[in-house]
């Protein structure tokens, strides 16, 4: 354990400059904006002539946007070592079990997310507090911080798992980005096929959607809007996705092969699933406006994605079978959409 602590200390020291840069990039423009922006304006009703003070955006969304962006950047910063043969040689030969190595990397990754966000968030809070006229309901900054931080921790966990499914940094990014609308697409299909429209908000099914939904609600409370709506489902879906991400990241470590670095990203959570799922559901969702050009477009996109995956133009017959099967499945699923 002593070795793990010492390694954690080293890693923290190693990422210190990165952390300082991230804090500066997030905080300085944010504080500058909050210190100088107009917080409210007087609205003159064109019919009644009544004057009303309207609060401008609290810009809390900017801090949540930064949090979301950090959740995509940080996994690449801390786990990219496993995407190069040299990195694997360097880190896997150290006298540390993989679980401890990845635990240290995960903790550092979380700090790279939470520290810049925290400094930015509370820096912005202070910038507002110290302004002479502050019309906002500042109480909501406290629950907004803890709620956002929790959602950030969850999103980082999911992205950490998705990124590490890639065997190259580019594939890792592709996986994180490809999963953003994946669940929304499945929800879209379910709502269209089974008439579930309106049961949940769309943001709930985007991987970072929880941040948007929660951020919007908190913003509305801060600027004293009435009729604030928020689906508590966000705090169910995101923690589940996050917990699954962390659990799978560590549970699959024994199956993590060092020799896979720089090779094709063959994970079952990567292209193997993404290409057929996207092909089938995009086709199914577009059946209403089905035309041969649309079909060909989706088929070509599936082939291009397979070329990106296989890194060659001439790929094995089974991949053609996968594309064909996905297209057939798409046509079949499309039949259920009224």
């Amino acid at each position, binding site marked *: 354990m002593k070795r793990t602590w010492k390694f954690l200390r*080293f890693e923290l*020291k*190693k990422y210190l400059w990165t952390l300082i840069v991230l804090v500066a990039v997030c905080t300085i423009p944010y504080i500058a904006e909050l210190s100088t922006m107009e917080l409210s304006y007087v609205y003159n009703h064109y019919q009644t002539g009544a004057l009303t003070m309207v609060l401008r955006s609290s810009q809390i969304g900017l801090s949540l946007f930064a949090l979301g962006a950090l959740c995509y950047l940080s996994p690449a910063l801390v786990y990219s070592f496993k995407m190069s*043969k*040299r990195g694997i040689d360097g880190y*896997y*030969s150290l*006298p540390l079990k993989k679980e401890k190595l990845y635990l240290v990397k995960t903790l550092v990754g979380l700090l790279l997310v939470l520290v810049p966000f925290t400094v930015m968030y509370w820096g912005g809070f202070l910038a507002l507090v110290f302004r002479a006229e502050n019309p906002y309901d500042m109480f909501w900054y406290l629950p907004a911080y803890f709620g956002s931080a929790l959602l950030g921790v969850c999103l980082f966990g999911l992205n950490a798992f998705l990124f590490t499914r890639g065997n190259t940094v580019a594939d890792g990014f592709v996986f994180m980005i490809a999963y953003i609308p994946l669940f929304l697409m499945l929800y879209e299909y379910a709502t269209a096929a089974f008439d579930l429209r309106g049961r949940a908000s769309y943001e709930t099914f985007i991987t970072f959607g929880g941040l948007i939904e929660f951020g919007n609600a908190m913003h509305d409370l801060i600027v004293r809007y009435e009729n604030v709506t928020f689906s508590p489902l966000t705090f169910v879906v995101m923690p589940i996705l996050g917990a699954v991400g962390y659990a799978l990241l560590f549970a699959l470590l024994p199956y993590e*092969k060092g*020799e896979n670095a720089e090779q094709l990203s063959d994970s079952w959570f990567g292209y193997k699933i993404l290409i057929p799922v996207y092909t089938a559901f995009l086709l199914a969702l577009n059946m209403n406006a089905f035309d041969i050009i649309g079909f060909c477009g989706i088929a070509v996109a599936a082939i291009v994605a397979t070329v990106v995956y296989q890194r060659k133009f001439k790929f094995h017959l089974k991949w053609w079978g996968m594309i064909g099967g996905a297209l057939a499945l798409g046509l079949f699923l499309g039949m259920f959409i009224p």
Partner: protein
Amino acid sequence: MIEIKNVTKGYEDKKEVLKNVNLKIEDSCVFGLVGINGAGKSTLLRLIAGVLQTEAGQVCIDGENVWENERRKSEIFFLPDDPFYASGVTARSLADMYRAVYDFKEKTFQTYLEKFKLNEKAPIRNFSKGMKRQVFVALALAIAPKYLLLDEAFDGLDPLARLVFKRALVELVEEKGATVIISSHSLRELEDVCDSYGILDHGVITCAGELERDLGRVHKFQAAFEKEVSPEMLGFPCMSFHRTGRVVQILARGNAEELTAKLKMLEPLFVEEIEVDFEELFIGEVEARGYLQ
């Protein structure tokens, strides 16, 4: 002692790089691991270092499996042919990393940095290939592990740095009882430091043993004959046979006197034994296996 027991390892694109490899490497020796390109040397070193997991079999140190074994891995330092360093990393920051996980001797590190005239605060990316290698050599010697694994050990090092490194390796083995496994194509360099060796060919250890003893068992003759002589006429199996005009060079195993006697039966104009070095032994072995014909 390092024991490699029935180890098999394959990659997806290249099936079975190592096939049922069995090898024992005694403590306190310098072991030379040689083989042609793609023979599986780097894979074997990465398995011993615990970087890769075996598909079948085990890599054990003193009877304990190395895979995910922190205690055993703390006794190993692996210096790959292309060592890892992140952008902006300095010799100092690398030393800090290894200090976190190994028993690191700062004084030794500084000594070798001075010997190699390296600036510990300069980014490694600006160093030449040889200077980068020197940094990692200094790190390896500062860790002074019980088992030092060196892939393409002398690659990029200038003759002076090679000499310093070889001396340090001998010191490590003699004074600290370390075991050094070196994979290299510089067989003449290996011959200077190795006690024992193993030849890896297409994933199989084809030949292993004490270097001095095995060099003593292989004999190289140069002879000239009036008539044309073929390998079949020699009366003994030869590892390699090269003819240039009337002069032939023969590499063979066995008793030197008996081999000379058989050669003399072919009435040579002259016959003489020439000293065999490791490179010739290796080439003879690979030629005997059908390469370079």
